[in-house]
């Protein structure tokens, strides 16, 4: 692509939404035709190259690797599940697991599960590639800021640990200590543990001196706890409604109400936590466009979940193989997964040239 435009780095929220939306698709359908559409979309986004922060530095993940699970799944399922009406061949004798009829249905079901697994692997690879570790930690809700600090300390302390380990090893070598058995490792591990804990103590002093405060106000804590209990009550109500044979939409509604309750209260709790970002990452128009497709797709999938009578995505090859249903409109909506790629194309992303 001509022009030499600057590479696009989408906001981490774009990748989070994209990942969640794609996983939702994969979780909700075992229709192989729709799964193929999803895999193609994810493969295109993957092949388009980095559109995130880690973009240029990471090693490529071969697409074929995500597909290796398809024949493996088909083979495994066909050889071990002897269910279905269309028989390919029969394995004679009494070999445990294997003997019995090998059916087309089992092979297709195995291949479909393999494809779903392949998509999941690919999706997480794309996510890991496009979101850096600091951005990933920043995605944690502010209500969990003390956990984010724990994560940050752990991440930054890992290289220090390596240095300390080497220093202790050298010191032990100078003293002529040889590490032969597993018990000798204690001479390395204990000094490492002690020096790490000393480091933690110094770090805590620094944090206290700078006014670090990890806890929320008592009122917020109580409200959140009450909301958790309310949310759990709604979830339990949803399950019981299914148990009592009430219509499926009641349970779905209760589950989604619980989710909304958790989300709303977390939002309120997060607003109470003040923080400073030294290098703020702006959410631009391109990010908005790129997040649009996956968001719309998620919304429609949730609506489909609320009204299960339609069963748009449902398919099972058992007991007898039938052609999977394929609605062009559903396939078109699945193309929402492509939106980061499409935005990058229209913006003249460098790595696509």
């Amino acid at each position: 692509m001509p022009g030499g435009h600057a590479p696009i780095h989408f906001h981490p929220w774009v990748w989070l939404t994209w990942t969640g939306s794609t996983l939702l698709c994969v979780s909700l359908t075992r229709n192989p035709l729709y799964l193929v559409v999803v895999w193609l979309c994810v493969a295109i986004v993957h092949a388009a190259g980095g559109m995130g922060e880690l973009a240029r530095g990471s090693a490529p993940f071969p697409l074929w690797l995500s597909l290796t699970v398809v024949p493996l799944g088909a083979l495994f399922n066909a050889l071990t599940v002897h269910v279905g009406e269309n028989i390919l061949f029969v394995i004679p004798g009494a070999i445990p697991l294997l003997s019995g009829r090998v059916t087309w249905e089992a092979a297709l079901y195995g291949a479909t599960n393999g494809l779903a697994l392949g998509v999941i692997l690919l999706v997480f690879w794309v996510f890991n590639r496009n979101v850096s570790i600091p951005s990933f930690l920043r995605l944690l809700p502010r209500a969990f800021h003390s956990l984010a600090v724990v994560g940050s300390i752990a991440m930054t302390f890992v290289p220090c640990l390596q240095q300390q380990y080497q220093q202790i090893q050298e010191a032990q070598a100078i003293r002529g200590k040889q590490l032969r058995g597993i018990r000798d490792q204690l001479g390395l591990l204990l000094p490492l543990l002690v020096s790490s804990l000393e480091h933690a103590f110094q770090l805590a002093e620094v944090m206290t001196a700078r006014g670090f405060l990890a806890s929320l106000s008592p009122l917020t804590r109580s409200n959140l706890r009450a909301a958790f209990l309310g949310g759990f009550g709604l979830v339990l109500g949803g399950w019981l409604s299914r148990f009592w044979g009430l219509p499926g939409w009641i349970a779905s509604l209760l589950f989604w109400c619980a989710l909304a309750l958790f989300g709303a209260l977390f939002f309120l709790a997060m607003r109470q936590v003040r923080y400073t970002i030294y290098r703020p990452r702006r959410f631009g128009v391109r990010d908005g466009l790129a997040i649009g497709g996956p968001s719309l797709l998620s919304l429609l999938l949730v609506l489909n979940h609320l009204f299960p009578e339609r069963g748009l995505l449902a398919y099972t090859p058992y007991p007898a193989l039938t052609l999977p249903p394929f609605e062009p409109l559903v396939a078109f909506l699945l193309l929402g997964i492509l939106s980061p790629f499409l935005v990058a194309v229209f913006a003249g992303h460098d790595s696509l040239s």
Partner: protein
Amino acid sequence: MIGSRGERLLSNLVILASTLLGCFSFLYPFFLPNFQQTPSPAGIRLSEMPLTMTLVLGLCVIALLFESQQGASNARMVALMGVLVALNSVLRYIEVAIPGPGGFSPVFFLIILSGYLFGAKFGFLMGAMTLFVSAILTGGVGPWLPSQMFTAGWVGMSAAILSPLVVRLGWQQRRGEIVLLALFGFGWGLLYGAIMNLWSWPFITGPADQYWQPGISFAETIARYGVFYLATSLAWDLGRSLGNVLLIGLFGTATLRVLRRFRERFTFVYQPAEV
């Protein structure tokens, strides 16, 4: 305004509710036959149960993380946990790079000892955060992560139960303490595998006597899972269990001594005398 007793009660209720709901999320294949036998006008979409359960499990993890982070509510505990999580993450990184025999994993050693010494909330966070941070370090973020965080958190959380038991038996800083911790590690080595299998078991299909199928009875589900576990996981999980016993047996006493010393320093609070 709720008093401190009320707050503690609410806190314990949240922990209890999220733990029970989390258990149910893992064990839903054992309850599904009941759902299946109940007629419903819309029908029960079994294919969507795993997704629902993953969502519910995610909510439980969030609730437990929120509640447990009160166990790291001051700078010293945050720093202590950060450093211990870093140590444990490095151990997991080594385990990923150089896999041990079977399911051997060194990460449970510190999780168990931390939960035992610093309490249930700290133990839960130690387990969950170790799995979270090490997943980021090793590029292992995936749909399995909430289940791993939850189960590893349980390991740390349940280790706190041993503390009053050891005090009651008078085994503090004696050989019995290490024996008890080693037995606990052995048990969790097997249980961790058995719980984690449940994450994927309902999706897998195979020989009828080992796999879950819609409509089978509760007893049949347990029997099939038992056969499945014996056939596919027991040998693997024994590696983890024996590894836990070995690590606690070899390094437990010395590590506990160090952690106890630092616990006193980390929990030291200066209160000026009232005038």
